[in-house]
């Protein structure tokens, strides 16, 4: 009898071509996703006169620089988009360009198009590649040198990470979702709490999440320092994938279900680290500082650096200074200047539904931008009447792309302005130079929009089902 194995061990074994004496494995890559940021890697390939090894397994998408609003596109942005197009065409890679109905943020369209499947190894030159692990795929972000290596060989050298299991027991409360759960554990363990580990999320609260919620949870694994997140595939996963464009069909589908059904951690398998969380103890959560670990329940207060010591005290002081906050003030009293709903963390249809539920029949007190995660999400949101709810509330409804998550396309938060945002990084300058970002769920962003300050979404959901 073989020893009980974790999902990670099973996925690793299925992709290992060989192992060097030093323990590094050469892994087979099933899907390689590239975006405009891959230009350094393509340049490296060109300089060596090499071709892409597996163009049939490589997919390119315009997202980071995608313009989300009509108007002139700056020359350097246009150049980045054109460069990706040129590289994709020269290498025979399927490109989702701006006009493609399949366009969107790479981590939204992977699942949406059925390119992301359980059991696959998926790489992309983007740290949030951890998102795809929600399907039980081995998915992790890589840098430009590694992107070039994958383009050239369709493989990657990698050491197997340690495994940590986060078990979430109980049931998440009303108004509390995957984003709150993620910010909660990152605040508990720290922004480097899971460094060197793959995280497997398990337990009833995780199983109870929709596919969208699972994607949000795995997406944020990287913000807690983990290279990848994993959730065992189940009926929710299969139901999501059936009929998707690039998903298996017919007999292949039947075999896939058989293969995917055994893709779970065996009873008794050992983890390097185990963490248990009680779902019922999690409140809607917001960040107050400049790292995702600076997160607290909305009912809390801005921390007082004087009550911290050493490096932590300096860090908190610098964060409050940058964020323009006073120690001890209630989080609910923090006034915001604007809101943003979108990104690979929370730009999916369910995220928009949740935000719209709060916004319906209400007016936003501050301006805001809503950028759906993909062209398909946009179309669906318009068909469901969600777009109308956003515009009637006074928010701007835009095209899909990374948009104000990273500001590369010009959608930025101005210096000194405070933004309630459904994105994933509250780093200094992330949304624009001097921008102040508070991370939260899309429902909480909607609550901030209609309140004009950080606000608990729960009372705003009363009576709305």
């Amino acid at each position, binding site marked *: 009898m073989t020893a009980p194995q974790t999902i990670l061990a099973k996925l690793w074994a299925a992709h290992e*071509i*060989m192992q060097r004496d*030093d323990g*590094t494995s*050469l892994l*087979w890559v*099933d899907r390689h996703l590239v975006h405009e*940021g891959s*230009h*350094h890697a393509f*340049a490296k390939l060109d300089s060596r006169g090499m071709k892409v090894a*597996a163009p*049939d*397994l490589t997919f390119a998408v315009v997202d980071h*620089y995608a313009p989300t609003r009509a108007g002139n596109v700056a020359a350097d942005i246009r*150049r*980045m988009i054109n460069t990706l197009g040129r590289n994709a065409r020269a290498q025979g890679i399927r490109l989702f360009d701006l006009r493609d109905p399949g366009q969107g943020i790479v981590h939204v369209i992977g699942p949406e198009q059925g*390119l992301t*499947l359980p*059991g696959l190894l998926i790489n992309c*030159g*983007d*740290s949030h590649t951890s998102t795809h692990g929600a399907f039980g795929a081995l998915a992790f*972000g*890589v*840098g*430009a*040198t*590694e992107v070039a*290596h994958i383009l*050239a*060989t*369709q493989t990657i*050298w990698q*050491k197997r990470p340690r495994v940590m299991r986060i078990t979430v027991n109980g049931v998440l409360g009303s108004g509390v979702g995957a984003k709150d759960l993620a910010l909660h554990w990152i605040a508990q363990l720290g*922004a*480097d709490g899971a*460094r060197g580990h793959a995280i497997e999320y398990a337990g009833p609260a995780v199983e109870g999440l929709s596919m969208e919620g699972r994607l949000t949870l795995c997406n944020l694994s*990287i913000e807690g*320092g983990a*290279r990848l997140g994993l959730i065992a595939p189940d009926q929710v996963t299969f139901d999501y994938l059936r009929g998707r*464009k*690039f998903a*298996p069909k017919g007999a*292949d589908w039947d*075999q*896939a279900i058989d293969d995917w059904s055994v893709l779970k951690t065996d009873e008794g398998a050992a983890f390097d680290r185990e963490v248990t969380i009680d779902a019922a103890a999690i409140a809607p959560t917001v960040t107050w500082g400049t790292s995702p*670990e600076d997160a607290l329940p909305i009912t809390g207060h801005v921390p007082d650096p004087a009550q911290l010591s050493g*490096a932590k005290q*300096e*860090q908190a002081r610098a964060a409050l200074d940058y964020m323009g906050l006073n120690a001890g003030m209630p989080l609910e009293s923090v006034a915001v200047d604007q809101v943003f709903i979108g990104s690979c963390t929370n730009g999916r249809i369910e995220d928009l539904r949740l935000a719209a539920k709060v916004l319906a029949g209400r007016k936003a007190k501050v301006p805001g931008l809503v950028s759906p995660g993909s062209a398909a999400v946009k179309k669906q949101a318009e068909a469901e009447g969600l777009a109308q709810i956003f515009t009637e509330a006074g928010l701007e409804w835009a095209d899909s792309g990374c948009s104000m998550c*990273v*500001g*590369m396309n010009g959608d930025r938060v101005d210096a000194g302005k405070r933004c309630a945002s459904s994105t994933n*990084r509250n*780093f*200094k*300058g992330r949304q624009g*130079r*001097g921008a102040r970002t508070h991370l939260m769920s899309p429902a909480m962003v909607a609550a901030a929009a209609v309140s004009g300050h950080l606000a608990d979404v729960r009372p705003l959901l009363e009576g709305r089902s």
Partner: protein
Amino acid sequence: MSGWTKISGRAVALPQANVDTDQLIPARFMSAPRSDGYGPFLLHDVRQDQPDHVLNRYSHADVLVTRRNFGSGSSREAAVYALVDFGIKAVCAPSFGDIFASNAVNNGLLPARLTEDEIEALIDTLGQADAPATVDLSTGTATIGGQTLSFDLDPVWQQKLVNGWDDIDLTAQHNDEITKFRAARFAAHPWALPAT
């Protein structure tokens, strides 16, 4: 990329935790071709907002001493290009973002792990000034301001830094195995190919 075994130069301290790659190089600079040189982009906005920033006071540094979780966040290798083009050859910290650390090694930049206590002591010693520093990959030690410390580094990465290996060349030796693996994988699991 050429390898290295030992470097000597100057060290400075950046006493901050969680220095993410968005700070190391703001996104708007990432469309520049590498041939432009990424050195001026290093910590661009932070340096502009703080005229007395350590990297403004010292236009050259070889070793950077900093706090935990350095290089967290975005996988942008441009953060490493900015450090390397500025002239930095080693960063000492208690921990690094995983992707950053492997990007660093791929570009000849050493991510040297020291303990929290060692880093705090170095930050105290360095203060606002710079100090002579030597880093030796063969012994796995860094001597900064007269203090010699052993750093933690994956042996594979140590080899890679010393030899300046390029993985693409290494992997090319295994082309046959890779071709066989692909054929076997998709024969056994046809569903793993994108449906057409």
